[in-house]
């Protein structure tokens, strides 16, 4: 028996949502098996992981908090990928953003908050874009593949942070390799009283909205899509392909950097080497799961926030490793990618000879 893929002629509207539902069920099933294997009880674990965060105010708001950086990195990756610029460097760009933000935060004591906050966000964005500049120039001027360069710059950004924290930015009180706490005037507003949900989330939603509007509705967005889908055709139509790629790369880096600033100014309030919990890499997964749709990226980011919080409470309550959360995300990626393939192609099993029509 042989299987092969055949392109579907048409796709009814319900097939997409149905397949995502199937993928989600499969993910839960596979995760349950893994949890059983790790010595936990699967059903409570699944409940802890996917449902309990949504049942308490604390769980819900913590989920929103965990989702915040992923909203930024998801948007950053999605917009770059839409233009055909394969930016795998959101991690490094986010880290660069945290450096810029911390630098402003440590020097902005006398400023009022209405000046300090825009300044720290701007610094994050600028540093993120700057970190994205070199690979973008190499790509657009010399044709050097950006997948490799953006990826390789990620650990470099982390090493710079380690250097700074062990050198000039070492904590002045504890002597630990954490920076001092940033100035109050640069801390983001809490938008949900008595929780940790901060202005960064609102900003992320705005960024998603802007990206969606720009790519879908504006002439620049149409150009960006054309460049991403068929660069040669875009060139023949007189579109500035290289400039589009360069600008998109910088915008992507800027959004990731803004995510870094949001982490510093919104929750951490100081720079640590653990400031990013692989937010940039997870952003690639978020954007992929969303099929590069911005609204989709927002929803996936929120879901990942729930899973992150849920896996922590599951691991505490059931004494299973907290990495189970990452495992669930990975399984989800695999099942959803399979679902996307099945949405486009149908599987044909051939067991017998071609039938005679009569």
């Amino acid at each position, binding site marked *: 028996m042989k299987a092969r893929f055949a392109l579907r002629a*048409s796709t009814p509207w319900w097939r997409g949502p149905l397949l995502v539902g199937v993928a989600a069920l499969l993910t839960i099933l596979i995760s349950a098996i893994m949890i059983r294997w790790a010595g936990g009880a699967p059903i409570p674990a699944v409940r802890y992981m996917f449902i309990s965060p949504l049942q308490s105010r604390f769980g819900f708001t913590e989920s929103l908090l965990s989702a915040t950086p992923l909203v930024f990195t998801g948007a950053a990756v999605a917009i770059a990928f839409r233009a055909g610029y394969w930016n795998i460097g959101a991690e490094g760009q986010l880290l660069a953003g945290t450096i810029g933000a911390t630098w402003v935060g440590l020097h902005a004591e006398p400023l009022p908050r209405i000046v300090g906050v825009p300044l720290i966000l701007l610094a994050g964005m600028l540093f993120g874009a700057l970190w994205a500049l070199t690979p973008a120039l190499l790509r657009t001027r010399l044709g050097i593949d950006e997948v490799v360069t953006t990826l390789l710059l990620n650990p470099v950004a982390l090493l710079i942070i380690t250097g700074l924290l062990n050198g000039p930015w070492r904590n002045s009180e504890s002597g630990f390799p954490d920076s001092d706490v940033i100035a109050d005037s640069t801390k983001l507003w809490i938008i949900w009283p008595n929780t940790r949900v901060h202005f960064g989330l609102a900003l992320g939603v705005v960024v998603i909205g802007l990206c969606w509007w720009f790519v879908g509705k504006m002439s620049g967005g149409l150009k960006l899509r054309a460049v991403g889908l068929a660069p040669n*055709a875009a060139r023949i139509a007189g579109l500035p392909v290289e400039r589009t790629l360069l600008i998109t790369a910088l915008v992507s880096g800027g959004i990731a950097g803004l995510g870094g600033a949001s982490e510093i100014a919104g929750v951490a309030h100081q720079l640590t080497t653990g400031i990013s919990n692989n937010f940039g890499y997870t952003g690639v997964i978020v954007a992929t799961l969303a099929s590069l749709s911005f609204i989709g990226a927002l929803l996936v980011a929120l879901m990942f926030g729930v899973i992150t919080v849920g896996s922590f409470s599951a691991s505490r309550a059931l004494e299973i490793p907290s990495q189970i959360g990452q495992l669930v995300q990975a399984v989800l990626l695999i099942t959803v990618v399979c679902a996307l393939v099945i949405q486009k192609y149908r599987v044909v099993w051939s067991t017998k000879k071609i039938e005679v029509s009569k």
Partner: protein
Amino acid sequence: MNPVEGVTFAFSGGAPSIILRNITKAYGETIALNEVSLDLHAGEVHALLGENGAGKTTLMKILYGLSQPDSGQIEAGGVALRIESPRDARAAGIGMVTQHFSLVKNMTVIENIALASAKTFAIDLAAVRTEIVVASTRFGLDVPPDAIVASLPIALQQRVEILKALMSGCSYLILDEPTAVLGPNDIDSLLEVIRRLRSDAGIGIVLISHKMAEIEKVADRVSVLRRGQVVSSSLANGITSKELVALMVGEQQSGISQRKPEPRTGQSPILVLESVGVARETGGLSDVSFAVRPGEILGVAGVSGNGQSELVNVLSGTTQIDSGTIVVEGRQLGSNTPQSLMRAGVGILGEDRHASAVHALQVVENLILDCVEKFNGKFQLRRKEMLSHCESAISQFEIKASPKQAFGTLSGGNMQKVLLARLFSRNPKVAIISQPTRGLDVMATNYVRSLIAQASKQGTAVVLVSEDLDEILELADRVAVMYRGSVVGVVDHSEASRESIGELMAGIA
């Protein structure tokens, strides 16, 4: 539809006949093939004729295992064949040379052929080399065995493809529009190869083609497909070209462009190329000079690969010139970027319509891609205006499509019409038009040619690059002939003939 009886084994001696029975294939709601039956015999050239979208390629893809039929059966010598992949097809002795070659361009000819015919773990390249030499003399298919495929001209690459199919042991060979990419001389030698394969080696050949002249020359049997059905299948000497065309299009050919070519001398030239050069190891340009006046059509003829593509790239701005000057309306261009050419009023229709548009975008989006800014609203694109602009282009250019349809789902002719609509809606002063009717059916070809004639009537200067000499002779006021990257002669229409231009194309004159 049954083939002519009684002559089935006229050329017997080869493999058993292959019979396709009631093959049906639908893509969504479109029925590409409807109960098609066809008999193929060893030692016979079977020409498959039909307009674009008639189903020729689909049928052959099914025979070669690239596509699966919804129903129907393929038999050889009374036994049902199960062909689910090209590998199955090759095992059954069926080979195919598709329009897009499947050669590994960075490998040598030997390596490519070894790759296809290797049956053992170790490859003896020296032995393969001997086999190639033997096979190429036997079939009259001269190829340089040690050359890197990418360095070979297209005609030689095609020979490698044919040789590859033959050496993997096929007794039936499908050639999908093999002459579409060749110049006149290469066409003749290919037809000679086909004859030898048929007569000397007893191979059955399926020749998909649009060109009557070739079919007259080599075909033993002709089948005509129209809208997914075989409308005629007969011996070649029993049917005239005229009858075949009538069967193909199903109606009388519409009028031709009705243009009366003549040299225009009154006005000063609008586009002048002076000693334009592009430095390349192969395939560059050297010392290309010509001028085009408003309302004039300058044909650019030449055997494929003599610099025409590079010339078009220069005039579309995708290749930068290394020497010489380009002057548009008396103003010299600083550099020939796509943007500067477009601003100067030079429009382009590229030779590859697939590469000229974004398949995944809608028709309307592709149509306005070169002037998006025009539809910029305050905060978003003015979609309504885009759509109404598209609607009017669709009716003006007789495009069979809806504005929101994905461009990639259009037929070749309609793709070309969309691209022509995009070109002419800019009202270009100069239009660079490359291979406008390649692979189009008769109706679409005539329509496209009349559009070009109409544009010149309205004062657009046209540079028409085409490998179809008849097209150039029909439309062009003057013909520039390219040979090895240079313009070797410019001939007025009154003096242009197939012979005079042919000599220039061959580099004789």
